[in-house]
């Protein structure tokens, strides 16, 4: 959390999302494939039977039940006491985990800005729909978090948080996931935004998230240079995070192998997610966030 710098001037949400885009986001809501139990009564159906106007079922009366929910019409016909059960509508917890390691600062256009815009859009949609939103930035752990936001009032705070956070440091995805899973804020939609180029792997980390009650969405953001390298010749490639060097002669053949490896890596991640009920999406930082949010995320039913 210490890496999130204090703002000297108020950052504005319009620095990330333009008003027209926000207008279009107003009509969207985060969709969970699961009926998850929330903490507060909200605008969303839950598994829980509770107080709402939507009928769910009947059950025989037992002593101690609230007599207000007895279906007197059935008692009139059958002379037996049945209790009316209603589907309780609860709020939805949306947790956005954004990668803030040094590797995100690279790319043209940068992955950092893309991820921040995407997080802002998802946060905006969640907040305007009165969902509970938690925004976490992670690198070698959770380096910044804005938890339990609800309602439009938090929009500027969210924008300020996103715009003031910096991408720096190593990425330790497993450690970060362990922290978040340990905090156990509650069930809900978990959206992880990262390039997922973790040398230690992503399996163990994602397992920590999948095992919980999260509806997990994985959005892998890569820069155009990572998707299709545009450099060649004899190079010494230096990892921005751990300064690991790889001396390569970037030839057409090597690029071909690189692309093949990248495709395999992405497919592995996708398969990993699919097998475990998570949704995977790949985004190019050169694409527009608007298009991704309005089209693709609706298509994968993260938004509606």
């Amino acid at each position, binding site marked *: 959390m210490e890496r999130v710098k204090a703002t000297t001037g108020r950052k504005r949400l319009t620095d990330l999302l333009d008003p027209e885009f926000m207008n279009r986001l107003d009509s969207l809501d985060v969709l969970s494939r699961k009926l998850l139990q929330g903490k507060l009564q909200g605008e969303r159906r839950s598994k829980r039977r509770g107080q709402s106007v939507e009928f769910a079922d009947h059950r025989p009366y037992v002593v101690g039940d609230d007599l207000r929910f007895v279906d007197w019409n059935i008692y009139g016909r059958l002379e037996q006491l049945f209790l009316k059960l209603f589907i309780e509508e609860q709020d939805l917890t949306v947790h956005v985990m954004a990668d803030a390691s040094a*590797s*995100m600062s*690279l*790319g043209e256009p940068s*992955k950092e800005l893309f991820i921040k815009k995407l997080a802002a859009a998802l946060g905006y949609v969640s907040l305007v729909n009165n969902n509970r939103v938690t925004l976490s930035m992670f690198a070698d752990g959770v380096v910044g978090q804005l938890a339990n936001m609800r309602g439009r009032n938090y929009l500027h705070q969210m924008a300020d948080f996103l715009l003031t956070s910096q991408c720096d440091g190593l990425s330790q995805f497993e450690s970060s996931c362990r922290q978040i899973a340990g905090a156990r804020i509650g069930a809900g939609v978990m959206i992880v935004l990262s*390039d997922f*180029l*973790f*040398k230690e792997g992503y399996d163990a980390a994602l397992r920590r998230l999948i095992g919980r009650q999260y509806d997990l969405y994985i959005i892998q953001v890569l*820069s155009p240079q*990572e998707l*299709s*390298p*545009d*450099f*060649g*010749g*004899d*190079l*010494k*490639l*230096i*990892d*921005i*995070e751990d300064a*690991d*060097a*790889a*001396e*390569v*002669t*970037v*030839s*057409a*053949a*090597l*690029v071909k*192998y*690189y692309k*093949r*490896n*990248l495709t395999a*890596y992405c497919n592995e991640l996708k398969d990993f997610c699919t097998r475990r009920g998570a949704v995977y999406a790949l985004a190019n930082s050169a694409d527009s966030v608007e298009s991704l949010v309005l089209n693709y995320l609706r298509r994968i039913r993260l938004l509606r």
Partner: protein
Amino acid sequence: MQFLTPLTALVAAAVALPLLLLLYFLKLKRRELIVSSTLLWKRAVQDLQVNAPFQRLRNNILLLLQLLMLLALLLALAAPILSLMSGRARRHVLLIDHSASMSATDVEPSRLEEAKRQARIYVESLRDEGFLSFRGARDQTMVIAFDKHSKVMCNFTADKRQLIAAIDSIQAGDGDSYLGEAIMVAQAFTQAPDDEPANQGSQETVKLMLFSDGQIADLDQIIVNTDELMFQCIGQSGRNVGVTAMRARRSYENPDEVEVFATVANYDAEPVTTDVQLSVNDDVRAVKSVTIPATGKGKADSGGAGPQGAGKVAVNFSLSYAEAGVLTVRQLRGDSLASDDAAWAVLAPPKRLTVLLVTAGNKVLESALRACSLYKLDIMTPSEFDANVPGYPNGDGSGLGLEQCYDVVALDNHLPVRTPRCRYLVFGRPPNGIDVSVLQELENQAVVDWRPRHAVLKYVNLTNLFAQKCYKLDLPRDAELLAEFNESPALALVRRNGSVFLLAPFDVLDSTWPFEPSFVLFCYNAVSFLGMQAGQNEDANLLVGDPIVVDGLVSGQSALVDGPGFSRLQVSANSSGSVRFARTDRVGVYGIRAAEPAAGGTRLFAVNMLNDAESNIEPVRQIVASGVEVQAQAAAVGRANLPLWPFFVGFVLFLACLEWFVYNRKVRI
């Protein structure tokens, strides 16, 4: 295909190939680039560089191209040639004419240089024993340069570099062109036992390759198998104007007056007008404009028409000059042969001679000597001479040596007790102590041969000379024989101890000579020659190739010679005090002086070409040797082999382009 320098290529290959492979494994200086993660790159590299380094090499087309390039370069370095000659090995003799006419510049830069160029091409075309060749065909070649004399520049060898160096070392000369000696030398070397086992000896055919302009003096005398003779005619034009004769002499009546006679010849088909200039010690004294008729129309005053009827004009100059000097006659019209554009004559100062006649009474000799317009003729009896030899302690005590008193001493049948340093004309028994011994007395001797071109015998006809009695002489080896009786020398020139003896080993009165006009001429020539009047002049005016002879030096004394193209060349006097310098192969003025400055001044010698045959530079495309016509080759010598290195270099360039293309294709994303 053969390789001229295979060893060089092998050494270069031994160094370059491992170096290339080593360089391939060396690390490059790489450009640093920051990336998000090296994770996928490392995997890609691992995929690309699958296993062992040799797999990399096998799949690397760039390395393959570089290896090919290096191989082609190494092959080019080995100088491969494709031989277009066939048949068994042969022996070749290159006969290169470097006479005066080959200095003509009608062919750029000169005929000799063109001949050398063609000879070099011919040598380069010969078959060498290839390093990687299994054939034994190896041509042996010999190089002979010839003008008046022939010189073996290089004996039979297959070493082309040695042959080319020998060809390059041939210098231009101004001499005549005689092929006979060169042919004899070539035949002698061909038949000589050879120490190289590869050579097949005399049964092997020899090819004579003659590089000349065809102006060869002794073609009618050479004997050669014309099937073996290939003639390469060098030269294009025969246009030339040259001085073919020159003579300068002082007037008989007035020695201060000098008369210069010269003949200028035109070898062009058109008449030519040119200026002829006379200069004395490089000061121009007179210029005359003359028109020389075309070839075949002129007529010289003395020599008549040239060998091919060159047009000639005689030019005379007269001037008053009472000192020694060098006269130069030069025709000022530029032409392709410079050697014959000028002629030089060394003029001695006017001098009248003082002669001492030692005789018991010989009126014939006395009157002959008196007819020689001498300054003074003294007559002594033998006893007076022996008693009063000037300069000797027992003499008259005048203190002056005999040489200072008299220019010439004529001894008539007198055997002096001493012969002080002087010049002697000896009739009868020769003096003692000059290495000439008398073997016996002969009778009834007639002259059978004499040297009419010698200064002593100029215009002298000895046909009717008959001696009733004479001494048979045993002459030393360095004696100059001027005339011969049937059994004994008749006239001889001997140089000893700084003295010169002209020996006539018979009594004039015992011969028919006094009745002959030649006797007076002989006396005049002999006195002039010995008195260094006419003789010195004759000695000083030489033709190309004639040796310069200077007498009167101390044995072993050094002298310095200056000449055209060289200076201060040191020569030593022989035991008889004479210096001989034979390297007069270029026209011009030569100077010889004693190494010690106190020993005297410089004696000048004029060496002239004055050769009608060499001035006629018309190339002869058909020569007749051994009675058979030999036609010149239609074209210049061309290569009989094909150097392949340019193709290999071209291939290297192509591979370099291909490598660049492939590299860019591989690197381009």
